[in-house]
């Protein structure tokens, strides 16, 4: 039920955005239905189930313009699992309308109360966020890259991450720790792992690879390495910081 309410809000906002691109709300609604029936089987309902393809973020491997998208949907992509779709022209339009509407409603304007310019100052100054995070090529690799954080996270989530970093740690942001036979521990971001080996970036930004058989133990670290800013920043400063973060929509989007 909660999910349905969120969906309704998101759909409403999506319709506004789609309208700006020349599509009608009816196009988007029809497109959503077609998407769920035909595309979600492989792409997933969020459009992110195929590696390297994130439909909600406009990240396609073989198309960028609406015309190219239409070609891909109609003809499929040879050499991949993407089959040709048997759609009428207006259905193609509807599907593209829906694709263009996905992910455009991540942040609600009501929550943006702070001042983004002041927030940028806090991010790069007092907050010392660049010591761990990276934005547009500046900062550290140690923590999550934030260049597109305004696309993927909502204001409430951003605020919570700043005040209570342990409340929700996305799986991809968990830290990983290995302990070698001599007791030396290395903590960092897990980049890859298989039956026999582990690859990670340690806290000194070095790429490291380990053979499991040479390790005493290894696993994810339960807590975030990020400190809470609850007592470090005022409420107004947190709002400014959040206002700045929601402007971060990727180097190519601003």
């Amino acid at each position, binding site marked *: 039920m909660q999910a349905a309410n969120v969906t309704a809000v998101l759909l409403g906002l999506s319709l506004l955005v789609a309208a700006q691109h020349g599509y009608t709300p009816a196009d988007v609604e029809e497109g959503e239905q077609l998407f769920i029936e*035909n595309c979600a*089987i492989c792409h997933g309902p969020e459009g992110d189930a195929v590696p390297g393809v994130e439909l909600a973020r406009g990240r396609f491997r073989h198309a960028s313009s609406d015309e190219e998208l239409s070609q891909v949907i109609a003809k499929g992509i040879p050499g991949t699992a993407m089959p040709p779709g048997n759609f009428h022209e207006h259905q193609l339009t509807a599907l593209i309308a829906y694709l263009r509407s996905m992910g455009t409603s991540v942040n609600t304007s009501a929550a943006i109360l702070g001042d983004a310019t002041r927030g940028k100052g806090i991010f790069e100054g007092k907050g010392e966020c660049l010591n761990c995070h990276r934005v547009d090529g500046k900062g550290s690799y140690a923590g999550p890259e934030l260049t597109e954080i305004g696309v993927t996270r909502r204001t409430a989530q951003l605020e919570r991450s700043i005040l209570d970093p342990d409340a929700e740690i996305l799986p991809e942001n968990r830290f990983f720790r290995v302990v070698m036979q001599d007791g030396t521990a290395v903590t960092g971001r897990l980049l890859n792992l298989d039956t026999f080996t582990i690859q990670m970036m340690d806290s000194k930004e070095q790429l490291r690879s380990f053979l499991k058989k040479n390790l005493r133990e290894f696993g994810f670290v339960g807590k975030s390495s990020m400190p809470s800013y609850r007592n470090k920043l005022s409420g107004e400063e947190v709002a400014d910081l959040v206002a700045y973060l929601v402007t971060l929509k990727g180097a190519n989007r601003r």
Partner: protein
Amino acid sequence: MKLGILLCFYAGSLFAQVSFERILSADKEPQNWLTYSGTTLSQRYSLLSQITTKNVKDLELQWIYQAPSLEKYEATSLVVDGILYTVQPPNDIVALDAATGRTFWTYTYKPSPEARPCCGHVNRGLAILGNRLFMGTVDAHLVAVDAKSGHLLWDTTVAKAGSGYALTHAPLVVKNKVIVGTAGGEFGIRGFLAAYDVGTGKEIWRFYTVPGPGEPGHETWGGDSWKTGGASIWVTGSYDPELNLTYWGTGNPGPDWNGDPRPGDNLYSDSVVALDADTGKLKWYYQFSPHDEFDHDSVQVPVLADLEWPDGTGQKRLRKAMLWANRNGLFYVLDRATGQFLSGKPFVDVNWTNGFDEKGRPIRVAGKIPTVEGTTIYPGSEGATNWYSPSYSPRTGLFYVSTWAAYASTFFRIPVAYTEGRVYAGGWPKSYVPDGRAAENLRKENEGFGAVRAIDPLTGQRRWEFKMNDVTDAGILTTASDLLFSGGREGYFYALDARNGELLWKVTLGGVVASGSMTYSVEGRQYVSVAAGHSLFSFALRK
């Protein structure tokens, strides 16, 4: 000396003809691999024993054949007297020198752009009889190609590609017939198996896996749902020459995740069917998953083995059995002469059933069906196993299966209507396995893992397992020297001790192993071959 050469030459040309008798006793010439699963009993077990548990660590790469194709390489090769035949996806047949990997010829088939296989333009291999190779194509043709020249002999349209029909499995030759079945279970097809004359490509018989009006089983489909009932075929069947029965596993009923449009058991979806090989008439069937809504295709290779089985009087007698680890999570033993259910036990976590009635029908757990809100089912959508070839070793008496363990999906149901050529699914599964994502961080603790599991068919109990970090789509090969070869999505190809699962050797091939490995020998030297990524690899002991 001259006479010797002459004799060799004579023997060579004589042997070049692959008679059906040779295929039936393929185990007697283990230097060759004459049919998809090694023999028509489909044990994927070889009598070659030059490579042993002791020396397998000395395996080294002999050659790589790199396919100019980005599709998954799922084919198992055939080897006939030193010539290796493979399919580079989608539908090019390549004849190679099995010792050097050098190409003799390539036959290129260009599938129609209408082809719409659900899950990639893939092909799992060939069949051979005489000097003819047979291949199903992704646009639902069956072609015969001259094994010497690579020239097309005939091309038969099996079904309409634009409606979603496709052929992806290796055909099976029985006597003078080549048997194939149609994929397309996500497109509302009506599945069938058909036998074609090896000489002409003319259809001899056809068996619909969804019975039409007036046929037994038709009553298990409400309304007109039989017309779009699916029950596809996409992995190769088996053949018992003494019973003259050919066995095939069938796929999901359509639509996949919403069974409302198709009330009833939906025969013969998710079943094994036993057909008279001469007529295509149904001798018996067993349905693993009546009225399936989880895409639990029963497209596994039917493994035929003779077991000492209790006869009910405290004695044991040799039983013609069929061993089947199903995508639905249960390991079955059936009597392959009659279809009688002998046993069924979970080999992974299972929550949709909690046992069988006296006839061997699974008892459903109430409420475990796809819903609008989503229902979590073990095993998940890709199943406890899938089309990946299992193996049975008569030496160890164990059945080996590539498994997705502790793995679930949440199944969502939506309303659905049929449109020709379009996906007809009625929902979607959300899986916890990241399905090929590179970021290991995204995996959660309860996502499941891949494993090779060894099952004792007499008890249904697991004897050992070899766990992997990622899941696996790799088939399994066993040999008379108690070796087991397999791989997985991580791109390792490895050898285990078939008796206890101990890792004996491994190599990184850099691409997903999504095929079954096979073994052959040339001039007394044993090779083990497997496809990974977009290439075919062949290994032998260091000289």
